[in-house]
């Protein structure tokens, strides 16, 4: 006796659910707000996390994937001053370009301007390894080794208002500027902010500080697909050259991997927070639906007497829960994007929407609405008509 088609059409069901939601008034708004907050949290957190990762990636893109950074640490009891190796010309084949770096801090003075600056001593190979380019003048060459020639970072040049040919006093010596570097930006791999530093030949650094010695060796791998191998070769090469030092080679990839791990953990944590917010929103939906069903018990009985099947009753209330969740999800998605935009703008990053954030946020909000709405909905559908109609 089951007819081919029985029960109201979808449009009619939607209309009925909308009308009863309207009836719920402020209570519906509260449940909706709960869901919206949950969805907004998921969307905002995913988008902020994604934007942060994108920002970090952009920062690291400037580093060059072939760059290797070897940190040198004196072995604690090797008190004897290690002979500083300068025989880097004979670098192994897997390593291309090898630049030792020694650093000290010195007071720079030019005319009235005076400030404390980072001064780095290295070989001409540094320019190749870091891809340095001059804005004015020329780079340092091998013939500058014994001279008092210096290169200024872009920031230093503008602070001291010094140009090519000017003289700058560093410590107790006067140095001659032979070039000003183009602005570089900060590279988190390199322990030297090139823009804010003065570069000079390694030997020249002795004039500023007798104790300064090579603490870092920068190198490029010949083949960027075999970084691990190149790192091992570099490590062994430096260890042999400087037995009194402990050598530790860092790769850009390692930093990137570590950051990716951290960012995954962070995203998981944030998603968990969003989940908790959704849980709270879902409980709000459940509360509204439970009250809704118990207040409309008699209506359920009347509808059943007039021919509503359990499935029709279930649809009536399920659509209400779904509409609530959907409205909350849409509102939440909007709020979430706005919040992410506000946060990234305040952090000075660019907003990158995670393509998954909105589907995930809206989807989980809908799922939480249905999940928490389901129990009251099923309770309504399982009511016996005679029980639902009973006076009490």
């Amino acid at each position, binding site marked *: 006796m089951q007819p081919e088609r029985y029960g109201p059409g979808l449009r009619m069901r939607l209309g009925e659910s909308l009308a009863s939601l309207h009836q719920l008034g402020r209570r519906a708004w509260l449940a909706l707000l709960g869901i919206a907050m949950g969805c907004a949290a998921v969307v905002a957190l995913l988008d902020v996390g994604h934007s942060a990762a994108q920002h970090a990636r952009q920062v690291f893109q400037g580093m060059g994937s072939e760059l290797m950074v070897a940190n040198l640490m004196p072995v604690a009891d090797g008190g004897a001053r290690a002979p500083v190796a300068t025989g880097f010309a004979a670098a192994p084949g897997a390593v291309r370009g090898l630049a030792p770096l020694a650093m000290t801090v010195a007071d720079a003075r030019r005319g009235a301007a005076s400030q404390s600056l980072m001064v780095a001593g290295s070989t001409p190979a540094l320019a190749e390894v870091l891809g340095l380019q001059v804005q004015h003048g020329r780079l340092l060459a091998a013939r500058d080794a014994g001279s008092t020639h210096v290169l200024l970072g872009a920031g230093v040049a503008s602070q001291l208002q010094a140009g090519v040919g000017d003289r700058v006093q560093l410590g107790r010596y006067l140095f001659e500027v032979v070039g000003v570097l183009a602005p570089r930006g900060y590279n988190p791999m390199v322990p030297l902010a090139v823009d804010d530093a003065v570069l000079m030949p390694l030997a020249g650094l002795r004039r500023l500080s007798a104790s300064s010695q090579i603490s870092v060796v920068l190198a490029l791998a010949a083949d960027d697909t075999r970084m691990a191998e190149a790192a091992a070769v570099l490590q062994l090469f430096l260890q042999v050259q400087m037995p009194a030092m402990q050598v530790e080679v860092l790769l850009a990839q390692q930093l990137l991997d570590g950051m990716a791990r951290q960012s995954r953990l962070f995203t998981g944590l944030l998603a968990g927070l969003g989940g908790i917010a959704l849980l709270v929103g879902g409980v709000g939906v459940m509360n509204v639906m439970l009250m809704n069903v118990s207040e409309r018990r008699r209506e359920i009985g009347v509808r*059943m007497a007039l021919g509503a099947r359990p499935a029709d009753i279930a649809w009536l209330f399920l659509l209400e829960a779904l509409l609530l969740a959907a409205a909350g999800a849409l509102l939440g998605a909007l709020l979430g994007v706005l919040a992410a935009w506000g946060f990234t703008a305040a952090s000075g990053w660019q907003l990158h929407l995670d393509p998954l954030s909105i589907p995930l946020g809206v989807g989980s909000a809908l799922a939480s609405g249905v999940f928490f709405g389901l129990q009251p909905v099923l309770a309504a559908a399982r009511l016996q008509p005679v029980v639902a109609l009973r006076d009490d």
Partner: protein
Amino acid sequence: MPDIIRLTDITRRHGEQTILHAVSLAIPCGQTCAIVGPSGSGKSTLLNLIGLLDQPCTGQLLLDGQDMTHASAAQRAIMRNRALGFVFQSYNLLPRLSALDNVALPLSYRGVGLHAARRVAQGQLAAVGLQARARHYPAQLSGGQRQRVAIARALVTEPRLLLADEPTGNLDRSTADDILQLLLALNHERRLTLVMVTHDPQMARHMQRCIQVSDGRVSDGHAA
């Protein structure tokens, strides 16, 4: 004349308590029939079983020739919509629907569109003399008018059997008489079988048949 209702050895229990004891009953098509008895005698339970709002524990229930004893909840709902009309003591109109939409509601479960359903409902409201009140909400109507809306709602699906549970219980004497006359006229004009639970002997007297329920057992009698 075929029976529209046939109950065979119907028993209904609530836990330990037996509300109906092996009730057998047949009501032919087109009959008007009162169910009378003291409070708690089981007459409402009997009406609920006939109306497929409740299920018997044992026995067999035939409605319009179909065995509904073990029908599923959905099958019973469809049968209620197709063959039965209900009129309740407390009207049971949905307060946030207009009189017209209350009357149109049963048609929506048949998949009839809103406009078509409203057209048919308008006709039924006219049949109970309330065409002018179609846009009113239940709260804006008197008791008698509400019951007329409820009757129009029961009739809109063109059922063969009208079940009324104390339809005049909340109404004053003259309004009650009007409602009774309306129900009797419907029985006469549409060959509608009418089964009415009532406390009121005067109401019962207007029925062709009177079924007495006491302590869960039925005995037949004709109204004086």
